[in-house]
């Protein structure tokens, strides 16, 4: 009973009682931070793939018209590089990089202006657009009655400006 009347004892009991909750909150915060890092890496992968694909220009069409024109395989290049870049973050993914890249919606708008039905955007220049759903591993969320896999929607659009 003395412990209950003592301030130090009260603090100790309070700490012991709230420690699980504090640990849960701490784990959630850490998982949330890790998820944000993973999302950033995945978005960077998509951005880089789009940029690389825009560099794939049709030199023959450029010689004919003098205007930049995406190569016919720009979408394939974007998909290939998306898989390569995601492979670097394979430990964060809840699926294989190849499968994620294969399932991604990648469109190359070879000539401009163009209208993107998926995003509703209008592109004034040849554009590569990558829209992908990337499943990320979130084991702490899974332990906390959330889903162990968090799917992130990534959108990357690139054009020469």
């Amino acid at each position, binding site marked *: 009973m003395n412990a209950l009347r003592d301030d130090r004892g009260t603090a100790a009991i309070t700490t012991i009682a709230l420690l699980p909750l504090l640990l849960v909150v701490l784990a959630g915060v850490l998982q949330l931070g890790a998820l944000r890092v993973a999302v950033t890496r995945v978005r960077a992968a998509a951005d880089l793939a*789009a940029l690389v694909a825009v560099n794939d220009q049709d030199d023959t069409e450029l010689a004919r018209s*003098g205007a*930049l024109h995406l190569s016919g395989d720009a979408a394939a290049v974007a998909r290939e590089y998306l898989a390569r870049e995601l492979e670097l973050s394979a430990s964060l993914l809840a699926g294989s990089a190849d499968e994620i890249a294969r399932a991604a919606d990648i469109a190359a708008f070879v000539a401009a202006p163009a209208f993107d039905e998926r995003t509703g955007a209008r592109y004034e220049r040849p*554009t590569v657009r990558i829209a992908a759903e990337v499943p990320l591993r979130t084991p702490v969320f899974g332990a906390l009655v959330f889903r162990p896999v968090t799917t992130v929607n990534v959108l990357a659009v*690139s054009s020469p400006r």
Partner: protein
Amino acid sequence: MMRRAVAAALAASVLLAMPSPAGAWDPFDSDEDGWQQPPAAPPPPDPAPLIAPPPGVYYVTDTYVADVVTSEGPLTTYTTTTVHESTGSYARVLETVGTGDTSAFDSEAFNGRRTLGDGRAVAGTYYENYVLGDAGFLPVSIVFFQDDAELARAIWGPPVPPGTSPGGGEPGSSGSSAEPSTSCCPALPLEPGGTLIEPRDDRAGPPGGRTTPPDRRAPAAPIPVRPGVSLLPASPPVGSVEVLRGRPVTLWLRAFAGDREVPVRSWTLLSGESGRALATAGTGAAPFRAAWERLAPPDRAYVLRFRIEVDTRATGHAFVDMTIAVTVRSPALES
């Protein structure tokens, strides 16, 4: 004493029991004395098996550069320029075609096949290029080396009445004929009201000895030169060009007189942001090569101003200025 004798006997027995001939070899001594030459070291194996080219395939030492069409007066020549360098590729002759002949490779050559003024395809030779890979000689492309010439239609003025020319020669004394006498251009049609001009040729006229009065027409005024810039030696000229930042671009400075291309003797970059240009002046056979690392201000373009020099019979010696707008772009992310 006994121990010394035993040791000496033991040493002698060892020497006698294990004799071995000296391995020395006298290179100046013959083999007849019983000595054998030391075995020669086996030659090192070839690093890669030598694959002989198939019959007709040869190593390329002169590489295709561009198709060239030059006009000197009424004569237009179709040739191909090469550079003496070896790229490690091989080639073989596919077919040699004459003027107007069709070929199965007409649509296969990456540089295409031009046509003469009357629509017939130029003469030349088709070559197939090969590279040597692990699987042997792999065909990579087909190139057409044009080699032809034609006579132009009338680019001189109307005929001058006989007797008024400075030479005042007799009819037929020039040896020229009303029909072209070069082997490349049989019977070019005459334009309505036009005159076919033939090159000065001392060869005999057509069968039957028909001759025409000597050419007493005065040269017309030089044809104005129309400049152009293209990204390939034979691609259509462009007025502006978009380039990616840092990517090398080749600009071919060309000139046209009427509907013919005329050779450019030299060119000079007068003004404009040249970026990382290899040269700011050169001959007509050398293009302007540059890469731009900096973007132009928003909604602006680099305007390059060139001066080209042309000196042909049709155009005379002329300098022509031209400009081209270069828009440097860089891949960027859209928000």
